[in-house]
């Protein structure tokens, strides 16, 4: 799976939780999930669980702490998938 394909899936998973539609329209790897997309921080657990289901991976809690942007998600998923 290419990073472009992972990016598309990540955006799809994040979309229901996004509060800032403008930020979603111009989403990129640099887009910050909490600050730009205004995703509720308590929803990050839901997002991580959806990543695990979608990509058939297990994400360690300590790895989630370093995720801030959409690009961080893509890198973490690509790295975890190996």
């Amino acid at each position, binding site marked *: 799976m290419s990073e472009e394909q992972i990016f598309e899936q990540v955006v799809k998973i994040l979309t229901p939780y996004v509060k800032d539609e403008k930020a979603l329209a111009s989403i990129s790897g640099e887009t910050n999930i909490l600050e730009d997309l205004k995703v*509720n921080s*308590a*929803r*990050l*657990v839901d997002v*991580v*669980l959806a990543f695990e289901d979608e990509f058939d991976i297990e994400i360690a*809690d300590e790895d*989630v702490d370093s995720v801030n942007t959409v690009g961080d998600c893509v890198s973490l998923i690509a790295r975890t998938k190996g």
Partner: protein
Amino acid sequence: MGKEISKNEALTLIPQRPPFRFVDEILELDENHVTSIYRWSEDHEFYKGHFPGNPVTPGVLLVESMAQAAVIPLALYSWSKEFGREGLSSLTTLFTDVEVEFGGVVRPGDRVTISGNKAFYRRKKLRAACEMRLDNGTVVCSGNLSGIGVQL
């Protein structure tokens, strides 16, 4: 790694107190499941206004009762395993999200049984599929409730 709590310890540790306490007893509690009961006393002040002459328990309080009687005990159980008893005191329980349906009416004096089955526990957040039934078996409220432990 702490030791899991008993159902009686969990009942004591549920932080809400009257007049905002809507759980009487926990019948069963383990890592994945909880069953509790609550009797809606005729003495609650809100029945005077909801509705005058036709008292009905507000749906929002049925949801609160399911949180207190199911989500919080399950969360306390998981937190105590992860953080120990001393870690519990630093966490405040907050609602994060809820999706429920109502299927009946709870009148003053009705007793309800609340059950919860854990959907997940991650990063101090717990979601449970919850259900509230009257003694006659009617499901009055059901859905998914989530809460998180935070340090305020």
